[in-house]
């Protein structure tokens, strides 16, 4: 068999291949040759074959049949063989292959070899792909090598130790004694790797960290760093005028880990950090890299404020630099620091906003995130303008994030309702299709809240969809509003803007075209149909037309639409007397906090009748009884209160279910209290609906208190403690009415300080009959793990004598037995 070709020949041949197919053919031919050569157990050419195999592996072809050959090469005595063998092992083998364990013995022998290069090879391979068994076996050897006098070996041994620690963290202790002398090195290579080793140890184990802090590692590191900066030009370590920047960066990183949350270490570092920050040259990228690491370190440790200001100024200078890399890096670090040093970062706001217009995608993304973090009450108008302009022109991948960011910011800092609504409308019209699904219910809630803006809003929305109804969220919101406030639209009373003349027919035209259009999603159609239905009570002359539309859709293919249409039809025919009551205006929803799924659930005695909904709510968490279908409404002559829903079940469908909108209604938290108070609920609230918990063991008579007594409304609290769970207190409230008229729509809400948790179960009813003839009872469960004094703020709303009453009160007179 002729001698196999050299690697270079192979490469040359492959390069001549013109197409992928040709290349594959060549490689397969060569693979076949290599395989037969392996079978022949040819020692002389084995290393050449394996080298070729490695090359083919790099190109992406399978090369697993060479693994055993690598092992044979490692076992051979020739250095060239060993070299290729180890390289092959590093590239082809890893812990997933069973073969690698066979290497352990070879590596062990080689670690004790006379030639340092062989030892070095073995260390490299172990450090690259050693599995935990191998590491356990060979850790002792590595540790021995860590102490030799040969700096080449020590360097490699330190890196190997890093890998061992990563794989088998328990072995960290073994390397501890060796680290004592590591920093007393002259050789930068060893120094560098030892710093890496120390970093790894400190990151992995807090005990080690404490140990190193005690062993006064920081002064040693400070000394080394100082030498590096102060020493003059040293040719072997110089990179563009700075000596060994890589070592500097590593040391800075280790200092960061040591100084985090530790005052003493931080203090020891302050000087050197200031020195590095001021002395480093910034003309080259190297200097900037060091400055960047310094800034990160300063931000992370407990540095003094002067140092922090210095760091932020450096970042500010980076921002003005022309080099994109530096600007990107500056924006990233500013994002990290904006939480802590908000004011300092504000100073650079204009530069950051300019970065929004940059061409580079990474920079734009960072600038956008940073801008959102910087928005506050003062600059919201200006920032919003910039951000809206950015939304117009940015790439699609940003639009969703940008839109949600704008919503959040607008919600927090809107200077006026009208501005808020304008902003949201602008977002909907420009980036309507990218808006997240939960924006629609949020927006609707916002609109209902701003009562005085209804006319203005509906007019603007109407104008917006007149031209174009392809943006689904916009159309959904618009159709909902038109359904609700159609009468305002038609009557043309709008103070803020010029009123436009719209007839009922025109409105119905638009809604119908939405229904018919192919661009509308099924959810949008649902909205439109319901809107048309609602208009039947608001509009006077076009009721017949509405009836016709509704009956047409009674046979639509879309099940959702069909169901709605059929129900509405039934409403027209058989239950016409109920129609006005059912389709009344939605009441004002109170604000739900927008920060994610905070579980704010309060039981409300809602008397607003639930909109017809026979489909079970989408999430399984909501109890079945919530779906008040028509039969229920007819069966019970009273209007039963709507049972609270689990707030975490934000509807999966894009807010299309009207019930979910009403569901939102029930989620009224009342962040009316001072920020120290918080309403928090565990999500398993609904268990309480069906059964009272087993509070059989009642603590002996805790006195009840009168929490509130005003205007004829009296609320008593009675207490129960459980012996099984001593931090839970169950309070039963009883509300009674001593006036001569009933109190209706009674809603009780409560808030407790942050350390408590509150759970409100549903009340018995929402009407308190007059003359103390009956009471409303409601159960509150308070979890008080820290056994602090119980305090509560309560808010009561009810209708009395035809007017709505509202009151806030604080309850402080809880008996000590209720919370101790």
């Amino acid at each position, binding site marked *: 068999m002729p001698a196999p070709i050299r*690697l270079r020949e192979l490469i040359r041949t492959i390069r001549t291949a013109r197409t992928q197919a040709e290349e594959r053919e060549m490689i397969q031919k060569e693979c076949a040759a290599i395989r037969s050569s392996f079978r022949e157990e040819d020692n002389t050419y084995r290393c050449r074959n394996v080298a070729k195999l490695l090359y083919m592996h790099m190109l992406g072809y*399978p090369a697993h049949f060479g693994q055993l050959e690598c092992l044979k090469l490692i076992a051979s005595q020739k250095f060239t063989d060993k070299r290729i063998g180890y390289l092959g092992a590093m590239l082809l083998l890893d812990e997933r292959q069973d073969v690698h364990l066979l290497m352990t013995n070879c590596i062990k022998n080689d670690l004790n070899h006379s030639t340092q290069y062989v030892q070095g090879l073995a260390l490299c391979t172990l450090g690259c792909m050693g599995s935990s068994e191998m590491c356990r076996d060979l850790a002792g050897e590595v540790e021995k090598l860590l102490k030799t006098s040969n700096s080449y070996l020590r360097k490699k041994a330190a890196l190997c130790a890093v890998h061992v620690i990563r794989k088998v963290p328990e072995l960290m202790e073994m390397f501890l004694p060796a680290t004592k002398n590591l920093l007393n090195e002259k050789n930068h290579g060893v120094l560098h790797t030892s710093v890496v080793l120390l970093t790894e140890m400190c990151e992995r184990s807090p005990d080690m960290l404490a140990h190193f802090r005690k062993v006064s590692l920081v002064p040693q590191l400070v000394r080394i760093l100082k030498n590096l900066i102060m020493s003059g030009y040293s040719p072997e370590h110089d990179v563009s005028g700075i000596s060994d920047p890589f070592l500097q960066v590593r040391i800075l990183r280790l200092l960061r880990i040591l100084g985090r949350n530790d005052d003493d270490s931080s203090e020891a570092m302050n000087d050197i950090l200031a020195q590095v920050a001021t002395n480093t040259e910034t003309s080259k990228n190297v200097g900037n890299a060091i400055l960047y*690491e310094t800034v990160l370190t300063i931000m992370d440790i407990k540095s003094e404020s002067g140092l922090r200001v210095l760091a932020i100024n450096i970042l500010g200078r980076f921002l003005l630099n022309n080099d994109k*890399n530096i600007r*990107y890096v500056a924006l990233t670090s500013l994002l990290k620091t904006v939480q802590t040093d908000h004011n300092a970062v504000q100073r650079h706001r204009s530069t950051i906003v300019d970065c929004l217009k940059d*061409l580079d995608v*990474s920079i734009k993304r960072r600038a956008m995130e940073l801008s959102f973090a910087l928005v506050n009450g003062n600059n919201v108008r200006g920032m919003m303008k910039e951000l809206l302009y950015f939304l117009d022109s940015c790439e699609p991948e940003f639009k969703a994030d940008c839109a949600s960011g704008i919503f959040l910011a607008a919600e927090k800092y809107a200077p006026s309702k009208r501005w808020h609504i304008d902003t949201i409308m602008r977002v909907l019209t420009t980036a309507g299709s990218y808006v997240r699904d939960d924006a629609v219910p949020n927006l609707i809630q916002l609109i209902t809240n701003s009562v005085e803006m209804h006319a203005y809003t509906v007019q603007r929305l109407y104008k917006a969809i007149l031209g174009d109804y392809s943006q689904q969220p916009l159309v959904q919101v618009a159709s909902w509003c038109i359904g609700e406030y159609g009468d305002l639209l038609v009557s043309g009373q709008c103070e803020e803007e010029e009123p436009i003349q719209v007839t009922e027919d025109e409105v119905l035209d638009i809604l119908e075209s939405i229904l018919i259009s192919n661009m509308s999603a099924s959810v949008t159609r649902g909205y439109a149909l319901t809107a048309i239905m609602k208009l039947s009570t608001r509009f006077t002359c076009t009721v017949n037309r509405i009836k016709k539309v509704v009956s047409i859709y009674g046979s639509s293919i879309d099940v959702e639409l069909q169901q709605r249409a059929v129900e509405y039809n039934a409403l027209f025919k058989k239950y016409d007397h109920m129609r006005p009551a059912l389709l009344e205006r939605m009441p004002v929803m109170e604000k739900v906090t927008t920060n994610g799924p905070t579980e704010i659930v309060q039981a409300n005695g809602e008397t607003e009748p639930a909109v017809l909904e026979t489909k079970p709510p989408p999430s399984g968490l909501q109890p079945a009884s919530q779906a008040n279908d028509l039969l229920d409404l007819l069966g019970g002559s009273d209007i039963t209160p709507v049972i609270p829903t689990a707030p975490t079940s934000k509807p999966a469908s894009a807010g299309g279910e009207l019930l979910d909108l009403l569901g939102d209604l029930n989620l009224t938290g009342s962040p009316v209290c001072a920020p120290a108070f918080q309403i928090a609920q565990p999500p398993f609230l609904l268990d309480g609906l069906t059964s009272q918990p087993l509070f059989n063991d009642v603590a002996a008579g805790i006195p009840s208190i009168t929490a509130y007594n005003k205007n004829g409304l009296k609320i008593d609290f009675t207490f129960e403690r459980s012996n099984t769970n001593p931090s839970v207190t169950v309070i039963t409230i009883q509300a009674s009415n001593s006036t001569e008229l009933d109190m209706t729509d009674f809603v009780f809400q409560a808030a407790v300080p942050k350390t408590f948790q509150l759970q409100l179960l549903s009340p018995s009813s929402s009407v308190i009959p007059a003359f103390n003839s009956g009471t409303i009872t409601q159960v509150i469960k308070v979890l008080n793990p820290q056994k602090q004094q119980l305090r509560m703020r309560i808010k009561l709303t009810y209708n009395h004598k035809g007017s709505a009453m509202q009151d806030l009160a604080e309850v402080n007179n809880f008996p000590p037995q209720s919370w101790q």
Partner: protein
Amino acid sequence: MIKFFLMVNKQGQTRLSRYYEHVEINKRTMLEAEVIKNCLSRSKDQCSFIEYKDFKLVYRQYAALFVVVGIDQTENEMAVYELIHNFVEVLDKYFSRVSELDVSFSVSEIHLS
């Protein structure tokens, strides 16, 4: 932590690849193709750090060869940028005026570098 180190030319041919984390072999070619596509689509005055999936790419172009390093969040991007340059300088010294051909033909030597 550095995830991988690649040298790929403009046509998408990999000249050198070193992975420090296990990646399936067929995924490697895909990864390399995507990475080089990202790098090629950047213009000269865009910054050298790209966010790709859950890690960052730091790339640097030398004539027709791209050196790309994939890092995770804990690494200092600029230091890695310098590292790339340092590496190329070392190769330059070793091969005296290194070129792409040298890289292609001396893969094993560069690996051990």
